[in-house]
């Protein structure tokens, strides 16, 4: 099996007067693990359904392996879709489920049975071939669905939030497994999720969507380290936010006016004085001030602390809103109460044009 690349060229999808997907250009490389990440209702499923052939885009075109897919139904495209609820066939045994695509292609029973058994053993389900999906656990059903999709040897596997129904432990396990299968088969994976942690752990690249618009397409590291918009900065991982007008700016840094006074960060949008801006700094780049004094620092009232095993989250409230500090749990946070000084370095903070943030 070999993956193929997928291109969306000026794709727009409208339902009546409602635009579910605004003009989008995307290129997904062959053999890549690509995630589409975004909150509920932002158009992720719509994109997936256009790629798989259940819908035609209102405008633009979709190319798979360089071929224009317009007019080809789901059966004719080199894609296979794994549904959010898996949509296994409950009245068939597991091997029949896996073999269904081969049955549809008229392959004889012994051959398709052999292939189904092989695929089921690949996903670790030996001995479950003759059972029905109802007799399997959630994670096992998941694997049947993957085997069923792989049976037709797709070049592109489309996964619509397939892990959302599983509990946390199983979800983490299946992430590793999916990634493994993707490495082994070389098939292009387009994975949809609204769970940013899931997207970060599995993907090569991520597209972050908001309300029908792709806000940023980038590698996992870049999405996390260099978010391009306030939405991406707040949707992917946690971020402390400060908002204010730019007071001074040069090519590298910009300073904004906040209740704490002037605060500086990297000027990534080439802002100039007077622009409305937001400054983002990750909780793990924010620290309690003792000894070395960072460039930006201010007083904040300590509220509470959450232990997360290897890390502790310290919650503060300053005059401009809440601040989170993320610290390794090395047993030196002493006792905190009343006002504490927190701070961060300017090169760890991003200043960008003010915009909509993800607030949840």
């Amino acid at each position, binding site marked *: 099996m070999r993956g193929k690349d997928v291109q969306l060229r000026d794709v727009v999808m409208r339902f009546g007067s409602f635009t579910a997907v605004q003009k989008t250009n995307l290129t997904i490389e062959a053999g890549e693990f690509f995630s589409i990440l975004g909150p509920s209702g932002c158009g992720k499923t719509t994109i997936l359904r256009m790629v798989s052939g259940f819908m035609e885009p209102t405008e633009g075109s979709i190319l798979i392996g360089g071929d224009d897919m317009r007019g080809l139904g789901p*059966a004719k495209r080199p894609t*296979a879709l794994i549904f*959010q609820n898996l949509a296994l066939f409950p*009245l*068939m045994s597991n091997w029949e489920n896996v073999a*269904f695509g081969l049955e549809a292609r008229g392959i004889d029973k012994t051959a398709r049975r052999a292939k189904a058994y092989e695929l089921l053993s690949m996903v670790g389900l030996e001995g479950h071939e003759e059972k029905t999906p109802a007799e399997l656990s959630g994670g096992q059903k998941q694997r049947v669905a993957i085997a069923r*999709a792989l049976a037709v040897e797709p070049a592109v596997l489309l996964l619509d939030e397939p892990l959302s129904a599983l509990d946390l432990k199983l979800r983490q396990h299946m992430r590793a497994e999916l990634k493994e299968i993707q490495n082994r088969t070389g098939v292009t994976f387009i994975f949809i999720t609204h769970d940013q942690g899931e997207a970060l752990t599995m993907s090569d690249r991520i597209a972050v969507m908001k309300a029908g618009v792709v806000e940023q397409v980038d590698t996992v590291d870049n999405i996390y380290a260099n978010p391009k918009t306030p939405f991406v900065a707040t949707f992917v991982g946690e971020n402390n936010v400060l908002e204010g007008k730019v007071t001074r700016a040069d090519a590298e840094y910009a300073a904004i006016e906040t209740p704490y006074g002037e605060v500086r960060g990297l000027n990534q949008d080439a802002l100039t004085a007077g622009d409305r801006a937001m400054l983002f700094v990750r909780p793990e780049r924010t620290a309690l001030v003792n000894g070395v004094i960072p460039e930006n620092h201010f007083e904040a009232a300590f509220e509470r602390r959450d232990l997360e095993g290897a890390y502790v989250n310290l919650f503060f409230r300053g005059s401009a809103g809440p601040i989170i500090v993320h610290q390794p749990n090395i047993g030196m946070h002493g006792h905190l109460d009343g006002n504490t000084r927190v701070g961060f370095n300017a090169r760890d903070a991003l200043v960008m044009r003010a915009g909509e943030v993800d607030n949840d």
Partner: protein
Amino acid sequence: MTDLLRSYGRGLSWIFVSLTAFWILVLIVLPQGFMLETSLWDINRDDQLGMKIDRAYSDLGLLEYDVTAAAEADKPAIQAKIDALQSEIADLESQETDPPREYGIQNYTKMSSLHFMIFVKSIVYALMVTALALVVCYPIAFAIAKVAPPQRAALMLLGLVIPYAINELLRVYAWLMILDYQGVINSVLMWLGMVEFADKSWIPFLEYSGSVFVALIYAYVLFMIFPIYNTVDTLDRNQLEAAKDLGASTFKIHWRIVIPHAKPGIAVGCIMTFMLSVGSYSVPQIMTRGKSGDWFSQLIYRQFFEAQSWNVGAAYSFSLVLVCLAFILIMMKVFKVGIRDIAK
């Protein structure tokens, strides 16, 4: 039972159980039991009975006269004869008012070959009606449940239900008017110049058994459509899409996914349509007006109300019940569904 007790407590459980028992007893066991009992006997009426009684009375009169005229010595002998005759009369009279029943299966075995032919024909026709109704209804039910957008589906359902708000007889009469000699279709044909009323060259649709078919299907489609619609409706649309995505043809999707899922509904629809059409009285009665062969239900009616032989009528109708039971069992076997699935 323990489940019932646990979920509803003693009082409610008692009410449920007794209501169910009442239902089974009064609405199923009693009438069917009565029918079965009636079918298992007949009265062998003695044609000579009236004459015998008359003769006994005249003998009695003579003897009574003899008694008054006879010598004292002979009187006891004659009196004994009178007593014997009186008890014979009482016996004969009781036979007349309450004739003896002969139990046996004679009512079932003495069906004439003509009646048996009608019996078989009715069953075959009802099977064909069921098959035709299934062929017509499955696509409609599927279209309403899965293809049509919700609003259109609701309209289609409404359109199907509205005719059923009209009395069954009126619905059948509507078909009568359409298919009659000077009915709608023939009128159209005449207008097209293909038939002529004046020389009676109309097409006698009503004399074909096809007309009964059409009317039966029309009368009972809903009983086929609704169970199928109900089961198809519960099918997850994603399963259809998954099958399509895996490259299955429309036929394959129906054969492997939709029909297996809809089996219980198909079985129920077939059972209802079959039972209703094999036992239908009004539809064949109205549509044929006696011009083409009898339907078995008409025969039963005649046994009861024209030939006055309730016992034979009961035997006929109980045979029909047996056929229906057999049909239910066969359907359950064929579709591999249990009572439980059907009850759902």
